[in-house]
């Protein structure tokens, strides 16, 4: 996790803020708070979230 570091958008040079972000997979929609640029909307998803929670959701939905 990012800990005490402040993350900024590479393009806009503004601080990322937590915002509800939508995901869709295999016809199911989810939302979770992720860091997002308030200007351009670019979302930052940390690797540990992808390999952790998001991977878990995928496994729960994937076919046998």
């Amino acid at each position: 996790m990012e800990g005490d570091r402040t993350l900024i958008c590479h393009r806009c040079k503004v601080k990322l803020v937590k915002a509800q972000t939508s995901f869709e997979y295999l016809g199911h929609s989810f939302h979770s708070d992720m860091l997002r640029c308030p200007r351009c909307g670019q979302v930052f998803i940390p690797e540990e979230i992808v390999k952790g929670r998001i991977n878990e959701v995928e496994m729960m939905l994937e076919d046998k």
Partner: protein
Amino acid sequence: MGKVIRDTFSVCPICLERVPARRVRTGDEVRLEKTCPVHGDFSVVVWRGKVDHDEWLGGAPAIAPGENEACPTACGLCGEHLQDTCCILLEVTSRCNLSCRFCFAGGGDAHDPTTDPPPGRIREWLSRVVRPGKSLVHLSGGEPTLRDDLPQLVAICKELGCKYVQVNTNGIRLARDEGYVKALAEAGLSFVFMQFDGTEDGIYEALRGRPLLATKKRAISNCALQNIGITLVPTLVPGVNTQNIGDILRYAVKSSPAVRGVHFQPVSFFGRIPAAPRDEDRFTLDELLLEIEEQAGELIGLENLAPSQCNHPFCGFHGDFVVMPSRLVPLTRRGATAPAGGAFAGAASGSNGCCCGSVQADRNREFIGRRWTRPRPDGAGHAACCGTGTDLGDMEYFLRRVKSHGFTVTAMAFQDAGNLDLERLRRCSLHVCDAGRLIPFCSYYLSAWQRA
């Protein structure tokens, strides 16, 4: 005159010799037809056309010339078997405390506990087939709970590295012996598969020889006390309990999260059977699908039940759901398939899916292991799953709720000497451990019929 839609192989029901066979379509019905040079012609219905046969079959290939020529005699597994082991089934006793009309294992012929294989031998057998960190073992019988040392056998499985340990049982001892259930839980039992033929005692009297509904309910309750997930397993016999399918499902959903799902098994004619079957004695997979929709359509849609991918599509189906306070939410949608590695990895690499045997068997095992295991009742999890939230769109809530209230509707259509199709058998992933060898279930239990 029917049309041959697929050439395959089967066995003669009388002598069990391998014979060529054909799947023949007449109207909507599909039959398996074969001729034994000694015992003559045989024909059995395998699909009644309630669901589109070709669509369900999908792209499952026929047996090509020269393929699987030693099937089924070279079992153990032969080098041409097309599927890895998803589950290992091990008979730990031939004794039983029931004498059922139908019994795949022909159980109950033994009464002497000294005929049970000792724990040391079981350890030796399993050590040859268990893959540490991966295997799912079914302890079966006869009735495995007749063994007082069953908790010790569960512990042996865990010591050998089995990821999941399941007991297949009629539930009689689980109902009356809470201490035994506790010992099984403490030994590391993962979940229970319990025979559950219906919600009316008349069904049990017809199939099992006595009323058992109250016993089944107590078994569910005792497993719940120990946080052991339990899946209900009806054997479906036309005219006995096929009209009870909807009630079974509704009862099972109401009993979530203790009950993790229902696993339907249309009656098969091997082991102990009352008589060789006629067509009207059979209940095909597509008939089951239609009955689920007709009897429990408010809970489950046909589009949420998908053909088996780990085994052959005609071997069964699966549907994955989450039990919510006022509805059953489907997670499975027929036709929706995941990209390899998940949404992120697939998009990044552009790679195609791997459908090789061991990957599919591993995935199948993990799917059922995750669903049928009840999560530990820690404070945070319990509060979250039983709180007032109902938003499955919230990722965190979804993950907690699926773990606590996941529910599966599955089916397995075992084969017998009448309808055995080697195109299916070669893809079987349920393997019986026979003194350290692995034999596909329908091959191991294959038994000849007596000629009338």
